[in-house]
């Protein structure tokens, strides 16, 4: 096994990887940008390397700096987490070149699966259903018109090198086809340096169901069941659960087999996720893409299976055989994950920055928190606004949703605006509770993105605000001796300019 692993990431996923590394007796090495000095992902590492700079480009996306940091710190492996360079074949290759193990698939697999068209070819070769599409074509191509003729509108134009919604457009009318293709191509060129686009049939209001796959270097591949990720805002998942309320055992088996067949066909090694669109009406499913990395929502799979996916990533990268058999995969209970974002759910999900004046997450039976922040830390504009993930497990779906809802109502976060009230509203929503939802959930239910405070609650809030506005701005007890006397740094008493904020009852 490796002895020291550099985690080329930040935030909750770096903390989470550190936890597993330390539990396995491996030393995690953190890297960090200037705004991340003293961040939880550094505190939980055993060693750390500062990366000069603040932007992602200068730090967590800088291959040369990361490889140098790994060499300087003596790391023999690199875990990329998700996002940043996790699916960048150049990074994986740069690690290989200096003899450092990249915890993930081969650069070749990554390049293959990162190309939407080539990955589609693999799916077809593996006998996995894909969304009908036209090959790469130019605006004005007869192939494009022919495809539109066959499948009708609306249809999708997508970037071959795509991802994250860039270079992707919904074409509603025939007369928009050429213009939309041109625009998508320009966007794709700008984003990926590759302007190739293709057309695809549009699946209206699908559900997003994905299968976790594990494959070792000895040809053994299994799946770990599905995750449903249909509650999304701006094409980004915010709530995930397993098992999916949309699958029958028969459908689960077919989709799982398809995921394994596809991973085998791609020669895939390590942990990966095969994403499908599911048409809940027909029960048809279509291959969407395969993510060649650890997924944000992997903890729900861990919760029902009692596995540590990062541990398996490390073992597989170390050449160990995957000792789990498909028959061993027996999920227990139900798990749901909520992504806690610093963003305003009532203002179009605008990111919020500031200082976390309070950060008191809930805890208790069935709850797991993966957090990348702490009280007193700043939330900057530089990186993704996800602060933490809360995972609730219970033996039934109903109980896991209620556990989550209770925990969200107890999640004390102040200083930035968070999406916690939105997540809570979803947990309480009758459609969601019944499991009847698709990727359009937030659009179908705009009330969820409006504040739902009752008149009584508003009056209570006003009363408490009136009360709080009369309180002295206190000093934190941690700067006060237990006797209530304020002391300067020399331990001597000092004048307290505010009244004590300690024991007090109304006035």
């Amino acid at each position, binding site marked *: 096994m490796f002895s020291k692993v550099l985690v080329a990431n930040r935030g909750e996923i770096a903390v989470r990887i550190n936890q597993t590394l330390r539990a396995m007796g491996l030393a995690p090495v953190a890297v960090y940008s200037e705004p991340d000095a003293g961040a939880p992902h550094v505190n939980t590492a055993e060693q750390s390397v500062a990366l000069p700079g603040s932007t992602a480009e200068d730090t967590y996306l800088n291959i040369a700096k990361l490889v140098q940091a790994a060499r300087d710190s003596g790391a023999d492996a690199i875990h990329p987490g998700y996002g940043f360079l996790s699916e960048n074949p150049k990074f994986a290759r740069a690690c290989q070149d200096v003899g450092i193990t990249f915890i993930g698939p081969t650069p070749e697999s990554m390049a293959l699966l990162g190309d939407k068209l080539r990955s589609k070819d693999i799916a077809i070769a593996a006998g996995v259903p894909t969304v009908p599409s036209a090959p790469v074509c130019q605006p004005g191509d007869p192939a494009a018109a022919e495809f539109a003729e066959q499948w009708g509108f609306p249809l999708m134009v997508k970037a071959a090198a795509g991802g994250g919604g860039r270079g992707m457009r919904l074409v509603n009318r025939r007369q928009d086809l050429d213009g939309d293709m041109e625009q998508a191509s320009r966007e794709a060129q700008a984003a990926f340096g590759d302007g190739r686009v293709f057309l695809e049939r549009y699946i209206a209001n699908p559900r997003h169901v994905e299968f976790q796959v594990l494959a070792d270097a000895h040809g053994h591949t299994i799946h770990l069941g599905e995750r449903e990720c249909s509650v999304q805002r701006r094409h980004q998942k915010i709530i995930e659960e397993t098992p999916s309320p949309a699958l029958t055992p028969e459908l689960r088996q077919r989709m799982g087999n398809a995921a394994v067949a596809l991973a085998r066909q791609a020669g895939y090694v390590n942990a990966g996720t095969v994403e499908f669109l599911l048409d809940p009406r027909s029960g048809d499913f279509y291959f969407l893409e395969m993510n060649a990395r650890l997924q944000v929502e992997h903890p729900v799979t861990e919760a029902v299976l009692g596995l540590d996916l990062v541990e398996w990533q490390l073992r597989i990268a170390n050449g160990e055989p995957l000792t789990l058999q498909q028959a061993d995969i027996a999920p227990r209970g139900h798990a749901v994950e909520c992504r806690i974002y610093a963003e305003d759910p009532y203002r179009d999900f*605008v990111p919020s*920055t500031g200082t976390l*004046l309070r950060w008191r997450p809930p805890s208790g039976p069935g709850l797991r928190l993966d957090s990348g922040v702490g009280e007193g830390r700043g939330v900057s504009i530089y990186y993704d606004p996800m602060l933490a993930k809360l995972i609730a497990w219970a033996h039934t779906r109903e109980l896991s949703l209620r556990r989550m809802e209770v925990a969200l109502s107890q999640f004390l976060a102040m200083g930035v605006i968070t999406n916690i009230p939105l997540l809570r509203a979803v947990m309480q929503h009758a459609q969601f509770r019944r499991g009847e939802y698709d990727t359009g959930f937030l659009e179908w239910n705009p009330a969820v993105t409006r504040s739902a405070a009752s008149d009584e609650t508003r009056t209570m809030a*006003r009363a408490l605000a009136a009360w709080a*506005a009369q309180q002295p701005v206190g000093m934190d007890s941690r700067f006060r001796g237990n006797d209530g006397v304020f002391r300067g740094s020399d331990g001597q008493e000092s004048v307290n300019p505010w009244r004590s904020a300690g024991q*007090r009852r109304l006035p």
Partner: protein
Amino acid sequence: MTANQGEMRETYPDAGEAYRYRTEAAEGSLTFQLDGGVAEGSHTAITLDIESREAGEGLCRTESGRTHHFAWAWVGPELHLWLDGALHVFQRAETRRRGRAAGAEASEDVLAPMPGAVLEVLVAEGDRVERNQTVVLMESMKMELVITASRSGVVRRVAVEAGQQVDRGMRLLELAPESDAAD
């Protein structure tokens, strides 16, 4: 028994009109009463037991015995109140009015509506701009933002440049006061 009164305004989650209120406090209990018809809603009064030992955190209980956990903090002039998992933001009505009055007399700023990076500044100092004219392009969380002028006027100052990271509320441009423009 301590009586008090004030005027506040909610700014989050829903921005509301200013309202006046009176409070009476005695023996750990607070009675709050909206004073004047400025605030909407059917509940205009409430009585709460309030207990608070930690700085900025407490518990209140309604007359029916229901218990609510709350916390508060000042963020600049804003009073952030957390109540049972939801955030409510208030300002003293005076504070807000003061800010406004000052703004009207001085030049007008074009502010960043959210944190992000400036992609392009489309105007220069001294340029005349029309209402709704695009003046700055920003990128934030993979979205492009088009920033437009809220009124016609002359650009007095450009405060940012392309590539710069800006926080929410940061000034991008300054428009000369109306009176200047009129001159």
